């Protein structure tokens, strides 16, 4: 028979020992995988795992004798889990039983979900976790670009987020989005917040359900204190605003986009007043003028002339594969971590020397503007698909935004 496991939040259990005047605590347990895995909580968690909910009873015993005595009476709970906690020789001991109607009680192995300090211990040395947990990243646009970035940054140990998007999860998003069918209809901000908290329950996530083009001042206020701005929106108008905020508050910004059918894309890093800004890019010939992909027809329509043909419109809302967008979002994550770790001795410090370019180009397929690129084959010394190319972009002395 497979062992049944019950996972407990270490911090919650510790809190039960603070006040011993009360020894019984009601909580809840979520049963998953046919009652073989349980997650028990003393209070409703920020993100509730999917599964069947039962009551949980946490009993704190002062002595092992108390536990033995109590164990005999615990069948009063018809369905649910009872977790016994007691300390022997300064060591926390636990025993948990799952009860189900008309079935024998099942002994469960107790496992602890570690405290905040332990969560990302395996990244230590590679990333300076104690620094990253105090950093705030602002992400504008939580579609197929911004949502995986948010989750990756949470996995890397970023502790604070500002999420901005007005949109909701629709069926057409699901194939590319980190959220799934069970999130349909939800605000992208709140659905992504849950994913972040599922990776790091201690993260602080502030959300703003606004269209930044309409509520630019709210957006400005929300982002004025972040450490890096991620621009994952799908239109230039919002990017110009974010560029402005970046320059005004001296906050590095990472802009990324995928172009039509995600045949490729580009990433720009703006280090305010030290390199080109988003507007400087327009005075260079290098930027691809292909239409960028948009999640939805109605959004695409906003930014195209009213007489745009259905064919042209369709090519813009054909958003491409998630796997074609992933290299771009992944690169944005790397640039973000480099910016957040800049000047700090960490395992990724060497990347500062590699990633000196501010503008990067990626091609997924030899199509359209990338048509003339050589085949990947064995050509390591010619431009070809599935590789990043850093381009030297100078700050434009005549830029109407940062040049004045």
């Amino acid at each position: 028979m497979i062992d049944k496991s019950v996972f407990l939040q270490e911090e919650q259990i510790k809190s039960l020992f603070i006040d011993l005047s009360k020894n019984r605590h009601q909580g809840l347990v979520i049963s998953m995988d046919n009652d073989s895995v349980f997650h028990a909580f003393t209070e409703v968690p920020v993100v509730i795992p999917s599964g069947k909910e039962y009551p949980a009873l946490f009993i704190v015993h002062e002595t092992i004798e108390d536990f033995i005595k109590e164990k005999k009476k615990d069948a009063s709970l018809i369905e649910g889990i009872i977790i016994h906690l007691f300390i022997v020789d300064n060591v926390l001991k636990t025993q948990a039983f799952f009860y189900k109607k008309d079935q024998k009680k099942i002994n469960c192995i107790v496992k602890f979900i570690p405290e905040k300090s332990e969560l990302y211990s395996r990244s230590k040395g590679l990333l300076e976790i104690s620094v990253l947990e105090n950093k705030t990243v602002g992400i504008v646009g939580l579609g197929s670009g911004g949502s995986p970035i948010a989750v990756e940054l949470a996995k890397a140990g970023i502790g604070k987020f500002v999420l901005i998007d007005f949109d909701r999860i629709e069926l057409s998003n699901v194939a590319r989005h980190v959220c799934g069918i069970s999130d349909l209809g939800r605000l992208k901000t709140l659905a992504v917040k849950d994913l972040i908290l599922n990776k790091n329950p201690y993260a602080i996530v502030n959300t703003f359900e606004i269209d930044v083009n309409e509520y630019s001042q709210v957006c400005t206020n929300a982002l004025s204190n972040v450490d890096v701005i991620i621009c994952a929106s799908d239109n230039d108008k919002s990017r110009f605003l974010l560029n402005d905020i970046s320059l005004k508050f001296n906050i590095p910004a990472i802009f990324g986009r995928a172009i039509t059918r995600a045949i490729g894309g580009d990433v720009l890093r703006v280090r305010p007043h030290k390199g080109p800004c988003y507007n400087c890019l327009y005075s260079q010939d290098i930027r691809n003028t292909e239409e960028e992909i948009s999640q939805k027809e109605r959004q695409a329509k906003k930014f195209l002339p009213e007489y745009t043909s259905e064919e042209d419109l369709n090519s813009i809302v054909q958003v491409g594969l998630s796997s074609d967008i992933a290299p771009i979002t992944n690169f944005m994550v790397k640039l973000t971590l480099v910016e957040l770790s800049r000047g700090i001795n960490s395992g990724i410090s060497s990347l500062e020397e590699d990633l000196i370019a501010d503008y990067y180009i990626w091609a997924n397929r030899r199509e359209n503007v990338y048509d003339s690129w050589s085949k990947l084959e064995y050509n390591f010394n010619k431009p070809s698909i599935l590789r990043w190319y850093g381009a030297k972009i100078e700050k434009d002395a005549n830029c109407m935004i940062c040049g004045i």
Partner: protein
Amino acid sequence: MGWTYEQQNRLQREVDILNQYFPSFAFVYIGSQLCMEGWLITNSKNNYKIRLYVPKDLPYSVPDVIITYPTQLKDYYGRLLVNLGASANMHLLSPIDNSPKICTYRSTNWNANITFYKVLMKVRIWLEAFDGHLKTSNDLDYYLKHQ
């Protein structure tokens, strides 16, 4: 909503440039909307009065531009331009304030380096093409590329 410090500076720059190249253009308020209005004269000596609406998020949006004079502007076939609505062939967008709206830039090709001067230059070119249309019946597409 008032203009930010950066927008005020930008507006001043726009005016400085227009004073040099299109001196007839000046600020006017249409209701609460700040606009710039002035006259453009084509090579055929036709006079057109142009109104440019200053975008509230200046300089991050394409300004709307309409022709306010001649009123009841008609094409070669005698059709009112406002009745053509959005027309790719004629480089027109849906009318505003019952006046034909000229398509100058796609918003996807817009950037903050584009000044009102550049927009009005494109309007000036549109007007030359329109005069050409009045003489030949060729659509404006014949003369102009979409940008």
